[in-house]
């Protein structure tokens, strides 16, 4: 009898472990660190950002989905000098970049048990709306452009309760240059909650 009870209990746990999720939603606080020419323009890290994702599983290890994100980069530069041809402009500069990635995504998960820690790799592709503004004196030079971009990512899901997880991810964003705008690139470190069913 004890043998059958033990088998039943083990079966229940095995059954739970074999349960596959159908979807995950994440809401993260996102920090940003500019790289390349974007890092030269604004050297300071961004601590204003949010990321929202929806992922649907197409197999035990693979999900597809979409991402919407926003981050603001800001840096004040005092007594900056701009020289262009025969003109020199001196003054404080207040530099801003607001970025809005909107991406389609694919993720692969190492492990299929939603109740255990899962590392995942993924990538996104889509559009980046980039709003760049440089305030000098009472003037503002503004540039609003749409960019094509890609975004490789590595992350981990840490279960904390039934169907609820902590999500940590590191994402590299690269928005390619356009005809009239430079490329933008930054690392995004996201920490937040994920929940699924």
């Amino acid at each position: 009898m004890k043998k059958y009870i033990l088998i039943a209990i083990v079966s229940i746990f095995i059954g739970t472990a074999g349960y596959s999720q159908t979807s995950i939603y994440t809401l993260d606080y996102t920090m940003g660190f500019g790289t390349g020419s974007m890092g030269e323009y604004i050297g300071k890290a961004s601590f204003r950002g949010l990321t929202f994702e929806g992922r649907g599983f197409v197999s035990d290890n693979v999900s597809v989905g979409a991402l919407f994100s926003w981050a603001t980069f800001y840096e004040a530069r005092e007594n900056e000098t701009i020289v262009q041809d025969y003109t020199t402009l001196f003054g404080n500069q207040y530099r801003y970049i607001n970025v809005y990635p909107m991406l389609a995504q694919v993720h692969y998960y190492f492990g299929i048990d939603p109740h255990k820690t899962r590392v995942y790799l993924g990538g996104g592709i889509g559009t980046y709306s980039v709003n760049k503004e440089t305030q000098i004196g009472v003037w503002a030079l503004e540039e609003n452009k749409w960019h094509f971009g890609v975004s490789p990512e590595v992350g981990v899901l840490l279960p904390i309760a039934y169907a609820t997880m902590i999500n940590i991810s590191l994402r590299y964003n690269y928005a390619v240059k356009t005809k009239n705008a430079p490329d933008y690139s930054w690392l995004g470190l996201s920490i937040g909650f994920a929940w699924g069913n």
Partner: protein
Amino acid sequence: MKKLFLNLIIVAGLAVAMTACYPGGAEYTDDTDIILTHYDPEYNFNDVNTYHISDSIEHIVDEGDTPTYKYDQDIISDLSNNFDALGWEQFDLNDTLNGELPDVAIVVSAAEITTYNVYSYPWYGYWGWGWYKSSDYYGYPGYGWGYPWYGGGTYVSTYTTGTVLWRLFDPEYISESDSTINLAWMGVLNGVMGSGTSNTKARITEGIDQAFKQSAYLKGE
């Protein structure tokens, strides 16, 4: 249904948060000070030994407003001190009227513009003096100013700003064919106006000093 509702709330909150964010920025009026200089690369400043500067300033204000004259002598004095420091000798008006001309002459303008919306370059045309047609200097009535550059861009401004503009030209470097006084050098101070007199004086002095500092070509360098 409950989960869908939760997701919709999150997406709506995210949409609100995604409104462009502009933290920080200028806090004090002098944070808005800019100093702009421009020169004609074809002009040889090495040949300049004498200058004349007008003893009065032309003022541009909003219609119905009274110009502020209390900084005029400070502006002229600051400019003169810097020209003197270049080793240039100042001409007085009597020398000019006697038929002698200085190597260069400087005229100064000051503008107070309230609630001005600007959308595109060139900056100066929209700062208030683009429509100002009085150019009756040294016997060239009706001449316009020939700006040797042109730029492009977009920006917006809605403040009360004070501007000091000085234009340096060579009396012999004038195009009579198209009635244009060609500029050799110009400087612009611009910023949000403050209420403190001593602070305003200091901002003007520092601005003019900076304009000369960033214009090493005046020394022939």
